[in-house]
């Protein structure tokens, strides 16, 4: 008889006093519902993915309604839960308005928010990191509270709400398709029409008495302030560039200063972009590395696998040095590298990194081979640096196109020269 009973079994514990933490320890036979889900639907709620495993399978299904295994059952459902949705972890409460309940979001970031930020910075799931568009609140928002407009990229949403501690306000999140304010404004997903649509859809004019929208300054590329009044009855107030200045801006009676209105690109702001830059350069690397290895195999013995391996590793290291120089050093040392064009900055950093690599570790290989390696590092670095233009807040498209017309031919010539010298050097020894 004992064998029929799933072990270990405990008796029921009253539901009320169970700390939430305990539920995470649910045993193998009572799996906790999966939490991951896609954003959309209603603000504060996330649509549950379909078929997230058989519901209620396993021993808990058994005839008796008693928990058969150790951990106690989860606490009762929140009154705000709806069939088909799960509550977002950043929602603290709901406030009733003329348009129904509006989620109040936390102004502090928890572990899952930080982990999400971490993954996004590494370019993992960055293209689909978003919250549902619509109206949210912070603190105790009322009819006179300011309305802060932002994008539905979760990194942006988190940046805004985490800077609003102590503020009573509304956050109107536009459907920018999970793209940050500035890029979305440039792409057209943050636009006058999207803003007007969102104002109307949320019934904002029935929730607040005033008619002002606090707009992110970097959204001005996509939002025409002067069209707003006619199209939705609200007036634009151009807010600060950085979420960190919103509180001060509000405290000053919606007035900004020069400092709030100018973009910056500090070392920290540049360094945080490095992992994504590396991941973008690494994408086409598989093919490049294949070519590098194949070229390394040629030599006096026509084609040798041991040469492919020995020389190939050295060439791959030079390629890696180029990526390090272009995608790490250039962003970090940006203002101090010579030249204004990014491809020139990349040439200098590639020369420095590739040059020191062969000087310190590969001197015995000879001048021809080492010239090839430095040229490879320099070309890769120059290309990676040129690609960093897309991540800066100060490069004009006309300027980027101009430098590319000069930079790309130089990069191609350097690469071809590197390949020729590399194969040639194999015949010298």
């Amino acid at each position, binding site marked *: 008889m004992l064998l029929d009973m799933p072990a270990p079994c405990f008796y029921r514990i009253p539901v009320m006093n169970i700390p939430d933490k305990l539920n995470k320890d649910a045993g193998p036979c009572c799996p906790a519902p999966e939490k991951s889900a896609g954003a959309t639907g209603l603000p504060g709620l996330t649509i549950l993915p379909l078929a997230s495993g058989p519901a209620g399978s396993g021993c808990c299904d058994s005839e008796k309604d008693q928990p058969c295994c150790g951990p106690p059952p989860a606490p009762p459902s929140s009154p705000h839960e709806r069939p088909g949705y799960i509550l977002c972890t950043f929602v603290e409460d709901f406030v009733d308005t003329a348009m129904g309940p509006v989620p109040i979001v936390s102004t502090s970031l928890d572990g899952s928010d930080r982990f999400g930020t971490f993954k996004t910075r590494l370019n993992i799931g960055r293209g689909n990191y978003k919250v549902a568009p619509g109206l949210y609140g912070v603190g105790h928002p009322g009819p006179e509270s300011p309305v802060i407009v932002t994008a539905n990229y979760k990194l942006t949403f988190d940046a805004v709400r985490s800077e609003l501690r102590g503020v009573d306000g509304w956050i109107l999140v536009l459907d920018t398709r999970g793209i940050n304010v500035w890029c979305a404004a440039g*792409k057209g997903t943050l636009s006058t029409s999207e803003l007007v649509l969102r104002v109307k859809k949320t019934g904002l004019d029935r929730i607040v008495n005033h008619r002002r929208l606090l707009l992110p*300054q970097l959204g001005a*590329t996509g939002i025409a302030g002067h069209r707003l009044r006619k199209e939705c009855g609200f007036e634009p107030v151009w807010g600060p560039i950085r979420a960190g200045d919103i509180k001060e801006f509000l405290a000053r009676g919606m007035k900004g200063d020069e400092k709030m209105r*100018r*973009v910056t*690109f500090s070392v920290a702001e540049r360094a945080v972009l490095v992992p994504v830059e590396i991941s973008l350069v690494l994408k086409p690397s598989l093919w490049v590395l294949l070519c590098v290895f194949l070229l390394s195999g040629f030599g006096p013995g026509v084609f040798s696998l041991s040469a492919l391996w020995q020389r190939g590793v050295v060439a791959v290291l030079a390629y890696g040095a180029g990526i390090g120089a272009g995608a790490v050093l250039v962003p970090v040392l940006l203002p101090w590298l010579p030249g204004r064009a990014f491809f020139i900055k990349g040439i200098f950093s590639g020369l420095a990194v590739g040059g020191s690599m062969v000087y310190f570790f590969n001197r015995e290989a000879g001048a021809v081979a080492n010239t090839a390696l430095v040229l490879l590092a320099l070309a890769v670095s120059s290309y990676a640096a040129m*690609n960093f233009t897309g991540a800066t*807040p100060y490069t*004009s498209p006309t300027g980027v196109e101009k430098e*590319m017309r000069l930079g790309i031919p130089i990069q191609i010539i350097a690469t071809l020269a590197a390949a020729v010298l590399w194969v040639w050097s194999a015949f010298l020894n």
Partner: protein
Amino acid sequence: MKSLRYLEGVATLVLDREKCVGCEACTVVCPHGVFVMAGRKAEIVDRDGCMECGACATNCPVSAISVTPGVGCASYIIQAWIKGRENAECVNC
């Protein structure tokens, strides 16, 4: 931004001062302080600071500002060269 400057003499920014009605919108939205008010009209004081984001032109109620806006991003421009500007998409930002 005074510490980081890009190429000079390339920005396509043009302001028609005749048309300007002095609403000051361009002086507010420009993230690089390219415009200032000179009397009752706006004036370009730092054309080389312009990154052609187009915020000023979008927010000028009388279309006194023109600029060729776009994405200052190499991978986008390579795509535009290969596939044409209509089919190019910015995949990285």
